């Protein structure tokens, strides 16, 4: 590798003043702010998980009592969903990359972007305050009437925290949609957009249309708890199920807020490390939109046993099957891209491949659950827990880590240590499966979720799961260490270490504050990787021009 050098002036060293960070409107710096904050929340949520996995080592309650256990899993759920996964990729990588990918100097509304980070932090601090003041015991789902009339935990503070953080999500989505519509550079047509942008566009639609419904559900909970107006109160003839409808109207689409951005990352990584144009570009692009639309029609599958009508259950069951189709389209297209590709297994690729496998397992078990009769059997068991962790951790978090590794050289100008990267990716994969696969079995055998005392025959599987969790924890700590290490000691990356296509790779690493000196002009489709017999394998040179034949 030639001795690349860091550019003299870039967005990181443009100014060192603390206010130049706290008041920045540079989308790249805001992405970094988000990355640091989300990392903190991830480890807060992770700490809770470690605690209850330790508790679950034995069938008895020996570490915590029931009320504490309830608070632990609620803390874990709320923090991981609302303060890590929902913002994760859009707010970090989306923020950082979308303007660069479409050849713009910034997002359409830079100040709203900064505001969204402050709202996020305000919401997060409220959540932490609620935790410090004793926590919440309702589960992340805040079901009524328990949350409004029974629970004497900090529901109010937590609800307000999630409400506020919701607005940060709305602003991010709004910014991404407007940016994609109005800021594309010359020649960047809709069907030349990287699939990363398409998936984020779809995600943003969900953020913008779904989050307000969560907001109003939380407002109604707060009004009911605080002022005694009783919209969900059965004493007045109110219907607690109405809350579940409102909540899942947001929260099912929200699962796509969490997974679509990971699919976005995978769609970038797979063609790069197979050195092939992506198979079925349009299908993948449109399947993202299809997911966003269909995702709004299936919330009732969370309420099969809640007393909704059988007819409604049947319809929701059917619609839930439909929503699996566009996801499957993506999986097939990625696999077809791999076929006869010249594949190299760098760290991002390991995460992407891991994603495909684990997401497929999560999605298929989703189909089991969408089958009404099966769900009646496994509802509220560990089967559910395993299902959504395969998707949200095996899928979404793997995608996040893959993306962080893939664009790390762009963000920092330096490479992470490849050997450590690969080892960690393997540790994460192994640890993950050891943690969550036993939970499928546990759930199938009938172990209910959200209990910390269980019959003795479940102990072996629970010990396996806890052992896996500690391996997984190690797998997450390692990147934290070597990525920080690489900031100073990593090899200088050069503009395009992966020889990838895409406008973001045409800029120096790290890019300058306004990304491009001149607005770039796009003349070719996305993923225009040279044909295979062209013997240009990755890492031969760090010459940025080599990857984009003109």
């Amino acid at each position: 590798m030639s001795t690349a050098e860091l550019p003299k002036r870039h967005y990181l060293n443009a100014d060192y003043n603390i206010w130049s960070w706290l008041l920045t409107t540079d989308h790249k710096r805001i992405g970094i702010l988000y990355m640091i904050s989300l990392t903190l929340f991830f480890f807060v949520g992770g700490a809770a998980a470690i605690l209850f996995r330790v508790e679950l080592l034995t069938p008895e309650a020996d570490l915590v009592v029931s009320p504490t256990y309830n608070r632990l899993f609620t803390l874990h759920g709320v923090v991981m969903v609302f303060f890590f996964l929902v913002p994760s990729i859009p707010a970090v990588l989306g923020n950082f990359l979308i303007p660069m990918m479409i050849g713009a100097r910034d997002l359409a509304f830079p100040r709203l972007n900064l505001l969204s980070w402050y709202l996020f932090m305000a919401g997060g601090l409220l959540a932490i305050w609620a935790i410090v003041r004793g926590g919440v015991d309702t589960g992340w789902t805040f079901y009524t009437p328990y949350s409004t009339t029974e629970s004497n935990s900090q529901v109010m503070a937590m609800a307000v925290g999630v409400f506020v953080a919701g607005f940060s999500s709305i602003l991010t989505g709004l910014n991404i949609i407007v940016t994609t519509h109005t800021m594309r550079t010359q020649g960047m047509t809709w069907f030349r957009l990287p699939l990363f942008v398409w998936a984020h566009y779809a995600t943003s639609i969900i953020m913008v249309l779904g989050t307000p419904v969560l907001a109003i559900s939380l407002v109604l909970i707060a009004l009911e708890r605080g002022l005694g107006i009783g919209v969900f109160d059965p004493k007045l003839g109110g219907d607690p199920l109405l809350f579940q409808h409102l909540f899942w109207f947001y929260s099912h689409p929200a699962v796509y807020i969490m997974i679509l951005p990971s699919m976005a990352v995978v769609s970038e990584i797979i063609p790069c490390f197979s050195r092939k144009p992506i198979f079925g570009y349009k299908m993948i692009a449109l399947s993202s939109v299809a997911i966003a639309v269909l995702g709004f029609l299936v919330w009732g599958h969370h309420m099969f046993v809640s007393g909704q009508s059988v007819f409604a259950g049947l319809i929701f069951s059917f619609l839930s099957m439909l929503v699996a189709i566009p996801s499957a389209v993506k999986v097939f297209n990625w696999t077809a891209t791999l076929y006869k590709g010249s594949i190299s297994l760098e760290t991002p690729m390991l995460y992407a491949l891991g994603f495909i496998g684990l997401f497929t397992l999560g999605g298929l078990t989703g189909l089991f659950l969408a089958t009404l009769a099966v769900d009646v059997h496994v509802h509220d068991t560990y089967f559910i827990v395993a299902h959504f962790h395969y998707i949200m951790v095996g899928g979404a978090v793997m995608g996040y880590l893959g993306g962080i590794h893939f664009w790390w050289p762009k963000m920092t100008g330096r490479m992470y240590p490849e050997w450590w990267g690969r080892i960690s990716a393997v540790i994460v994969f192994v640890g993950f499966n050891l943690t969550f696969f036993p939970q499928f079995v546990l759930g199938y055998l009938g172990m209910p979720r959200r209990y910390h005392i269980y019959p003795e025959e479940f102990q072996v599987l629970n010990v396996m799961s806890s052992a896996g969790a500690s391996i997984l924890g190690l797998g997450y700590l390692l990147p934290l260490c070597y990525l920080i290490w690489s900031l100073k000691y990593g090899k200088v990356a050069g503009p395009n270490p992966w020889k990838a296509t895409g406008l973001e790779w045409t800029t120096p690493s790290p890019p300058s504050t306004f990304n491009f000196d001149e607005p770039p002009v796009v003349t070719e489709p996305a993923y225009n990787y040279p044909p295979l017999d062209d013997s240009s394998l990755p890492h031969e040179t760090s010459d940025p021009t080599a990857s984009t034949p003109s």
Partner: protein
Amino acid sequence: MSDHVAHHFDSAEQQFDAARLGMWLFLATEIMFFGGMFAGYTVYRFLYPAAFVEGSSHLHLVLGTVNTAVLLLSSLTLALAVRSAQVNQPQGTVRLLLATLLFGVVFLGIKAYEYSEKFAAHHVPGKYFVLGETHNPDVVPGHVELFYSFYFAMTGCHALHMIIGIVMVSIVAVKAWQGSYSAEYYTPLEMTGLYWHFVDIVWVFLFPLLYLIG
């Protein structure tokens, strides 16, 4: 390039397009926000029609009607204010914005008076709720209380939006007075207008649903 164009935009037109699309999207989120309450209202209205009629009959129809008129007028003056800016008549803009503010404040005043009546009559849901005299002896007081839950939640959220709108109109009024808007540049004015009309439209739905049933 005019100095209203931020560094990351190529042209004033691009900036205006972005602002307008952003505002429409924001209004879409608002529709979803109020939509949740409208959905809840619909469910209970179907479940307890008699109780909703009963609840509605205790609202002050005249005041509600006056308020509707006041609000429609305020939208008119705001629309005219934007138009004044488009034809380069800054004084007109300022005066019309002040009129809008006045109507907005009158609306909130009347609303506050209605609320106080409800407080006095113990019609606020919660511990102190008493239905008192009814037109229909068969209704369950709890169901009427549900009606009032929606009445207060919906008009309360609406009033909160009005307050935000009044702050926005005040800001653009000051800016207009300083001569910031002209036929070339009136984006903030137009955006404030969109927001205000939206809040107005929400009321146009609330009024019949709350006051005119039965």
